[in-house]
């Protein structure tokens, strides 16, 4: 270990944040760029399944909430790309990787949203799982990322409560058809939400180094268990069930046991063959492609302005 590396690791061990100007190992930088850009991409792609319902939100209040959530997600994308750029990465380049299928984003957004309750279930389960993943990242070793996470987590926990409230209202005040929508949404989104924590620890090779760097602070399995443990009581209050016959409280471990995740489906989806991967990427590519003339015009206009001043 070089003296620089040693100083770097000592700083991390002492829980002092690494800042953009500090020396850092190349692999730390690369790992972070990948992680932060994936996170940013997920925010952006995550707007699409909600965009499918924002034009059909059933009341003005629900429309406002959903629009605000989508707006927040665009905002999260912006912070996160900015945090990533402090590492010397370029936003357009990373987005190009997304569009060409070389960069990943959260697999959950490749599932379709098929009824209004999905807007509640996405908030509750998907933002819920995201928060469990992200809360530890508020203490991650890289300063700009940690600070972005603080804001992101705060807003996401608001989304989560709002999502849950959508479902609770439908279960408590709704018609039979609405209650059916809620259970249906949970049935479809339950397993994909559990998959958001990534492969089982034994298949998650990057974890050890990421742990040492405090980019990652808990294993996938730990976080998944935490999510399940906190979610089941909420599920019970809803009066709904999870689509998992093996789910039950384990008195001994103090945790819920749960069934086997369909890892084959998970890998299919992250390899680009999920139900909506193609539509999601096409939507993003189209947006950037058909907006090219707008961005060019903005640049040209700014140059004209500058020349006029000079």
């Amino acid at each position: 270990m070089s003296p620089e590396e040693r100083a770097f690791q000592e700083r991390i061990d002492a829980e002092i944040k690494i800042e953009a100007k500090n020396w850092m190992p190349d692999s730390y930088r690369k790992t972070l760029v990948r992680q932060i850009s994936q996170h940013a991409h997920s925010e952006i792609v995550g707007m699409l399944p909600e965009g499918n319902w924002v034009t059909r939100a059933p009341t003005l209040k629900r429309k406002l909430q959903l629009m605000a959530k989508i707006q927040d997600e665009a905002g999260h994308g912006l912070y996160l790309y900015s945090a990533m750029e402090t590492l010397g990465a370029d936003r357009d380049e990373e987005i190009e990787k997304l569009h060409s299928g070389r960069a990943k984003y959260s697999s959950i957004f490749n599932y379709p949203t098929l009824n209004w309750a999905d807007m509640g279930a996405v908030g509750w389960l998907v933002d819920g799982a995201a928060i469990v993943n992200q809360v530890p990242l508020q203490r991650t070793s890289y300063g700009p990322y940690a600070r972005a996470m603080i804001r992101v987590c705060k807003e996401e926990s608001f989304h989560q409560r709002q999502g849950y409230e959508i479902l609770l209202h439908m279960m408590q005040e709704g018609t039979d058809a609405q209650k059916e929508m809620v259970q249906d949404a949970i049935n479809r989104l339950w397993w994909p939400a559990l998959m958001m924590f990534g492969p089982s620890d034994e298949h998650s090779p990057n974890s050890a180094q990421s742990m040492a760097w405090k980019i990652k602070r808990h294993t996938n399995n730990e976080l998944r268990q935490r999510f399940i443990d906190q979610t089941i009581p909420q599920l019970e209050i809803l009066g709904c069930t999870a689509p998992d016959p093996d789910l039950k409280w384990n008195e001994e471990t103090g945790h819920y046991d749960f069934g086997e995740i369909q890892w084959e489906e998970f890998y299919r989806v992250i390899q680009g063959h999920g139900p909506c991967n193609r539509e999601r990427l096409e939507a993003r590519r189209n947006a950037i492609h058909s907006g090219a003339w707008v961005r060019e015009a903005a640049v040209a206009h700014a140059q004209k302005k500058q020349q006029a001043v000079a």
Partner: protein
Amino acid sequence: MKKYDELTEFLLRMGDSALIQAQRLCEWTGKAPALEEELALMNVGLDLVGQARNWLEYAAERIGDEAIDADVLAYRRDERNYRNVLMVEQPNGDFAVTMAKQFFYDVWQYHMLTQLRGSSDERVVAIAMKSLKEVTYHLRRSSEWVERLGDGTEESHRRMADAVDSVWRFSYDLLLVSDEEAALCADKTLGDITQIADQWQSMVARVLAASTLEVPAPAEPFYLNSRNGVHSECLGILLAEMQFLQRAHPDASW
């Protein structure tokens, strides 16, 4: 076709316009030319749904029927009973058309709300004051975009000029003041909005000129008439989508 009293009709005009404009902005989700614009379009849309809710709540109160609230007005009226100005219902087209519509609507809103602050009706004043703050920002943003695109590249200039040309013809419907509205101004219920056409024309002319765009001659009325719910064909399809859940589940609570 249902007609309410003059003030209520006016409130519907304001509220419906904000709502339909916002609905068109919602259609942009995930399609904007830059991430910053996703944020900004949704931000403007949010303000407008908020404004729509305020206007429609007041309209519902005035209607005074227990079964009618802002959501019922928004989600259970057919197109022939919608009172939004024609400008906002037009299809989004490309970003230039969207910005042209937004700009023309913002200029109108800006002057309308400015005047409405002088109304004798407190509710109208309160909604106008709150909305005006938001609209001042909307207007700055949309006029900047009109300028940027008008005086940007050759392509953007052409697109912006086409955009102005394609929606300009609906501007008469923004600018016409009905006899009923004039009466509401005369008795001070509303602030004096009778000069809206001049105010709109002069601000629009200034921005278009700064954008190297030609200012078309004032548009003439031609049959379509938002006050009588004679809309463009595109509104019906928009409402079919927007209202679907309330229509499909009339007994539901969301």
